[in-house]
């Protein structure tokens, strides 16, 4: 048994011109979240508690795209989603279309623990939240001035109507790539809000857990569901590993990215880092994404093919790293 390990992320796809002070803020938040998780692990809290705790912290801080600070829909509202999975027994819970629940990840946990279902959405999820007495706030609480500005830019770019996945037939894709600025999910990287936050943990007893939360894609259609609440896509945990993904949601869904890390470990016998490299390399099919992962034996790994990913990780033997770029 290799001891505990933890990794957090604040989304993949970062503007290379992001001001230095914003980069510093992001690193400080990631460090704070790691430390929060580390002290919980030192107090022997189970992995499932730790991932929820850390993601709550990321949701409550307005810096990343989840909870307060969520990206806005085309109507300027916030629709959040989240999922959580416990490796032992592969229990899971997920929510989508949440508009007034302060911490969607905790509602996902309650769906797992207190409902006969594993996924509740929209008014039904809000209703369940009221029933469970979780903290509710006005939708405005989640909306930051920064994001109102970003939505305006996104609408001007109008890029959400453009399907970034369909290649223009007959055009030379190489030269097109040179001419186009860096894009992420159809948006110029400068106005792209990295889509997700997440945390994966293996505790001292080898139990893995994963949690992912998001406001989704800036300027998304009402009702759009991304990869974050989908078990096997954005989030997955079993006895072998815990995985949380971020990036272009649609590419992650079609690649069943989180499950595939576990599947290649299970069915192909790969190690954790090999498995992470394999799915980033082979399963994204041109999509841009990243992920963090821990194994039941206490390893930690991450991988991404986007420009940057906000992430941090630590293990019991004292290793700690926080970074944005490759």
């Amino acid at each position: 048994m290799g001891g505990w390990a933890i990794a957090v992320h604040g989304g993949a796809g970062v503007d290379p011109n992001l001001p230095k002070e914003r980069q510093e803020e992001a690193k400080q938040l990631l460090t704070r979240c790691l430390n929060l998780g580390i002290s919980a692990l030192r107090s022997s809290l189970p992995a499932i508690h730790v991932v929820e705790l850390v993601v709550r912290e990321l949701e409550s801080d307005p810096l990343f795209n989840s909870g307060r600070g969520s990206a806005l829909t085309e109507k300027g509202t916030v629709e959040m989603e989240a999922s959580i999975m416990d490796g032992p027994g592969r229990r899971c819970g997920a929510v989508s279309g949440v508009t007034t629940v302060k911490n969607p990840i905790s509602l996902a946990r309650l769906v797992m623990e207190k409902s006969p279902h594993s996924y509740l959405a929209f008014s039904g999820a809000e209703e369940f939240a009221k029933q469970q007495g979780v903290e509710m706030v006005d939708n405005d609480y989640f909306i930051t001035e920064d994001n109102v500005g970003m939505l305006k830019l996104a609408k001007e770019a109008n890029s959400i109507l453009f399907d970034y996945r369909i290649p223009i037939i007959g055009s030379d894709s190489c030269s097109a790539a040179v001419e186009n600025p860096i894009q992420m999910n159809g948006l110029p990287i400068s106005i792209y809000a990295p889509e997700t936050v997440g945390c994966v943990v293996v505790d001292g007893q080898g139990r893995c857990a994963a949690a992912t939360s998001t406001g989704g894609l800036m300027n998304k259609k009402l009702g759009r569901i991304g990869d974050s609440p989908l078990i096997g896509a954005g989030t997955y945990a079993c006895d072998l590993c815990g995985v949380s993904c971020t990036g272009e949601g649609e590419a992650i869904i079609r690649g069943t990215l989180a499950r595939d890390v576990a599947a290649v470990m299970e069915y192909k016998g790969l190690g954790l880092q090999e498995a992470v490299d394999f799915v980033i390399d082979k399963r994204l099919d041109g999509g841009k994404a990243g992920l963090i992962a821990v194994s039941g034996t206490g390893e930690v790994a991450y991988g991404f093919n986007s420009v940057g990913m906000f992430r941090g990780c630590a293990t019991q033997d004292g290793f700690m790293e926080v970074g944005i770029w490759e």
Partner: protein
Amino acid sequence: MGWAIALHGGAGDIPRSMPSERRELREAALRHCLHMGVEAIKANRSPLDVAELIVRELEDNPHFNAGKGSVLTSNGTVEMEASIMDGNTMKCGAVSGLTTVKNAISLARLVMDKTPHIYLAFNGAEAFAKQQGVETVDSSHFITPENIERLKQAKETNTVQIDYTQRVEVKDASLPVPNEDGDSQIGTVGCVAVDSHGNLAAATSTGGLVNKMVGRIGDTPVIGAGTYANSYCAVSATGKGEAIIRATVARDVAALMEFKGLSLEEAAKHVIEERAPKFTAGLVAVSASGEVAMPFNTTGMFRACATEDGYTEVGIWPNETCDGEV
């Protein structure tokens, strides 16, 4: 190599004591849909079109839990969901929380073809449906008197919500019980198809489960759980949604073929016997080379299949198939 098609009308606790007229009705529907699918494949329609066509037909049939005939939520309303996936391009589309769209599967197809997203739900999905001009009907179209009675039974026993596959207990099984037709809780319809060039597609649609909480999402719209297709195989799953999500049933059939080199039959059998808990799941699957597998670990599964070399099967319980006569 050759074409193949398989379809299902749900897996669950289907009692062998089911009255013969009820049984014949459903067998006739399966046979009709199979015939329709075979004709479409022979007419060189793409597997994606065929899967959509057959699921539409199953949705329109009131004897299966999808479209007309969908089971009711705890509020007595209908909330339908569906997903579709093209193995060739790995493109996919999904919808949840539909209340007025006549054919949920066709809206899923439009999400795939006409939006940059994969998954739209609830009001956003309904708004998209209007925009696209798909046929909508009053919610009452979907609600059958039988399903009103089923909800009443479910509410009275209050156990159904936890495990909808359990029939309401009858002290003496030989006694006729009003509305105890046995297949009342069976959810989901689906179709998978492959043409003689090895192009694959899968489609699944459902009304969910009786007495479900408003907003509950099951496995059906979740890519990798209820539906999956790639260049190896196409899979549509049915049963207890929460168990299927956890076991990523549809993706795992493909993953076992891809990463472990299993045949379609071995992979499908492994997933149903080893990954999904007993009495929770069934699936239909076809491989690129035209094989078919239809395993289930429930009492029965309404199912039918046909292959190019002339094999056909229409059945409900294990080892009990009637002649397809396609």
